[in-house]
């Protein structure tokens, strides 16, 4: 780690003042930032520890029947919170499919939104990487890319977003609440993460000095008709090769309404409203096929990851069937339903 100044923010205004300094970064659970600092990938000159801001550690109901999850609520507390389990079980399930109990006890809602890619080259400071060192190149394109993106990649970057939680938040149409020097703003999940384009060093649309305060989740519309299906290289403690978060509203045996997002395939949770619209009125099998066709439109693999296209197609079909039948995949049950 490179030396850094250390602030423990007493309150949010103090945190915003300290966090606005050049080279400053906010620190929450530390599971990703401290990891990257040890690898020399991140070298903040000032760390602003948000730990004392207990006000950001609450899960509360919103007047419309939705939820507001404070940015410092840990992944473990979020997944185990009765309100989350009742109103956003898809979120709880996605969280429990990620990382480990230890990491989930530390990692926070806000921090997880800012989790950085697991691209090998991004992590290895002896190699080039446009995300870590803009302009140096993207060796993953011609190199080792089994875990990389099949959608939305650019010539500059083919990294994926590694979070499970964010895939569920995308499907749930959550809104990220932010405070900054310029005041508060609300960013829909669809606009929070970016595609790499020609600036892969920017993962999100958050501005420097802005801090995430909460994530707002609309009222639940899916009941037990949801699932988080994750495929990975070992049965736990591994990042997704492909994951699918789905919630559906049913009318008889047909899908009335659907929300669906993919993980492990792009620089952000991958969601297409057209796919969700096309699922309306269809039986689960047909809805899955239509959704897959639209979601995977233009998908292009590289030398090692083309299998993800077919894997994602099948995983979408399976997940839609699971959701439609109201049998969500349980994180501890390794038999895929």
């Amino acid at each position, binding site marked *: *780690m*490179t*030396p850094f100044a250390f602030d423990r923010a007493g309150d949010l205004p103090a945190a915003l003042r300290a966090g606005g300094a050049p080279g400053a970064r906010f620190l929450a659970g530390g599971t990703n930032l401290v990891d990257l600092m*040890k690898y*020399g990938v991140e070298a903040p000159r000032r760390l602003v520890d948000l730990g004392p801001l207990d006000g950001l550690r609450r899960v509360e109901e919103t007047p419309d029947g939705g939820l507001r999850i404070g940015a410092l609520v840990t992944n473990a507390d979020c997944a185990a919170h009765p309100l989350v389990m009742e109103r956003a079980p898809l979120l709880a399930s996605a969280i429990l499919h990620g990382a480990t109990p230890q990491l989930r006890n530390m990692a926070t809602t806000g921090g997880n939104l800012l989790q950085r890619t*697991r691209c*090998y*080259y991004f*992590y*290895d400071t*002896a*190699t080039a990487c446009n995300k870590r060192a803009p302009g140096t190149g993207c*060796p993953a394109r*011609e*190199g*080792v890319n*089994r*875990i990389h993106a099949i959608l939305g990649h650019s010539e500059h970057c083919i990294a994926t977003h590694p979070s499970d939680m964010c895939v569920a938040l995308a499907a749930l149409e959550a809104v990220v609440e932010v405070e900054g020097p310029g005041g508060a703003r609300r960013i829909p999940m669809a606009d929070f993460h970016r595609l790499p384009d020609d600036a892969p060093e920017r993962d999100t649309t958050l501005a420097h000095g802005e801090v995430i305060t909460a994530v707002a989740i609309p009222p639940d519309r899916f009941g037990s008709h949801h699932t988080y299906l994750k*495929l*990975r*290289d*070992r*049965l*736990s*403690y*591994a*990042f997704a*090769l492909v994951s699918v978060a789905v919630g559906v509203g049913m009318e008889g045996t047909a899908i009335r309404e659907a929300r669906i997002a993919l993980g492990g395939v792009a620089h952000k949770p991958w969601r297409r409203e057209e796919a969700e619209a096309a699922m309306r009125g269809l039986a689960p099998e047909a809805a899955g096929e239509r959704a897959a066709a639209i979601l995977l439109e233009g998908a292009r693999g590289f030398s090692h990851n083309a*299998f993800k296209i*077919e*894997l994602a197609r*099948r*995983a979408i*079909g*399976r997940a839609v069937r699971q959701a439609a039948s109201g049998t969500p995949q349980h994180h501890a049950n*390794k*038999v*895929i339903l």
Partner: protein
Amino acid sequence: MLTERHVGRPRSRVDGPLKVTGRAKYAADYATNGLLHAVVVTAPIAKGRIARMDTARAEAVPGVLRVFTHENRPRTAWFDRSWQDQVGPPGSPFRPLYDDRVHFALQPAALVVAEEFEVARHAAGLVGMECEAETPETDLKRAMTEAYVPPKRRSGIAPPPKPRGDEAKAFAAAPVRLREQYGIATEFHNAMEPHATTVIWKDGELIIHDKTQGAQNSQDWVCSIFGLAKSKVRVVSPFVGGAFGSGLRPGPQLFLAVMAALSLERSVKLVLHRDHHFGLMHRPETFVTVGLGATPEGKLCSVQVEAVAATSRFEDHQEVVVNWPGLLYDVENAAFDYRLAQLDTHTPSDMRAPGAPLGMFAAESALDELAAKIGICPMELRLLNHADEDRNDGKNFTSKELRAAYQVAADRFGWRHRSPEPRSMREGQELIGWGMATGVWEAQTVKMSASILLRADGTAEVRCGTADIGTGTYTILSQIAAEELGLPLPAVNTLLNDSAYPAAQVEGGSWTAASAGTAVQLCARSLKEKLLKAARGITNSPLASATMEEVRFTGGRIVLARDPSHAVTLAACFRELGEEKIEVEETATPGLLSKMRYSSYAHAAVFAEVRVDEELGQVRVTRVVNAVAAGRILNPKTARSQILGGVVFGIGQALHEEGIPDHALGRWMNHNMAEYHLPVNADVPAVEVIFVEERDALTSPIGVKGLGEIGIVGTAAAIANAIHHATGKRLRGLPMTLDKVLPR
């Protein structure tokens, strides 16, 4: 007394209380006042030279004492000979900071030493290097066009057997023929304890705590390189957090820490970062081609095994890969070939059962393919070709209860309920597959010495230079000594892996129990002779004319077996001797005569069940039964753990473990434990381990064959065969990751 029968009984690990309380001390757990912390800086390229090294900024950081590089390193011995160790292969060993050459990715290129760990790590990031890169070769597929037979054999590694019969002719004439190539990816040991060395420096004398499978190997190496007298260097490593072969050869961390301590005249600790291990130790990628000729009934007419394994450009690392099917199966015509191909990597290291799971994955997969082709049960095929003698060497086996192992494992597994057709067993959306394979590993003994110190109060200390890397050596040596001397188990304290202890070879090869166990038994017997002699000498001794055959040692006494009222206490023997304690040291040497006349191997029958999601290709191993015939089992409890550990290693080899190289960079890209996947708890099912009774007085004096390796050997093949049975898909490359299993 029941409490004195220990050998063959399940006993809890005697070092258990230290390990569950955190009191067991590993190499990095030692400290002293003023201990310095060292951090390695690695080269950013895989091949070429370091043109310029900039250490000024690192040295300017407050608290940094020195940055060592090839430009300023102290003078030490640099001849190849001085860098040889007990087990290294032929060649020129890697010498850290030797010169400006970079031979492999993640090569240590500088060492930063500072007062605090974080200061050293920070300064390490400030060391600048300008490199002239050359094009590295890490692709075995390309390099194997220049494969060669190693000109110099590695000591202790059996060369490929001589050909027998006429394999080519027999293969050409065989009614059923099969010839396929199998591949096994590079694997990394990843013992949980990182490689670490703490050097306690005191007035030029060193106490070294090193992660090593042989304290004396480390001591010899340090003395040889730095020109130190053995009296000035003691290596003390009582606990080793796993090694699996990675601690056989002394590692760069040992050299670098000692170099820094001697130069700075301070105590130094160096713990390698997890990622750096990936550059320094691995199981070599290997391609194995197997050709089988058979009759329509399944009798083998010919076997051909050819392997090409990766090695470095500076050493010819060799393993026993191709020999196994030739001794396991009865076949008239056989040919074997083993070659190496050079890559720009570090030299491979022995890793759990080096060679065997590679050759046996290929051979046991090929047999499964043959069974499917002919349409007979895979186990029947093996029984049909079972070898009653070792035809590679023309010797009898000391014992081989493999038939019994097949039978008992098959029964326990329920093999007879297997429906032979692939894709014929399923539950819900999962296809169920059952596969089996054979495991084999040589039972070896090496020269080892041990000592026992027995006190008049009936307590004893066993000492041996070898190590317990989790294998249970502390426990079984205590059991042997306690049983021989008629003492309760807690009365015996075993002490290991200290260069001051009786000489022993490195812990490895599954030879430790047989070798060190025999040495301890010899010590106990020698002690008993001395004690009985003393007992006979006591005035009016009730054992005045007793011979060793007529007495038993029990409950701290020597007792006449036919009349227990005739007894002498050990305390009385000590009084007679006029001593408070006596100590004996004995050496066990391999029985060369028996080795010339017999072959000795441990065998295993492994049966595995997998469940494969038909649509998504997710594989779950749901059941493994491993029946092992390995001579006498000293402690069924710790023995079971050894086999279980081998099976889990095999699951990793089958499904997960793979070094992923970027050939353009010559670099493993998943060089960390997040992206190099070891099996986690969720990946491992209930595993049943069965020990088949096997009496063998020839393999070693205590009848033991060793258990550290045999558990892994057939496991990956059994899982591959099960995946074929489940899906109909034959996967010939390990690991069998989801993308390979995924049906088209």
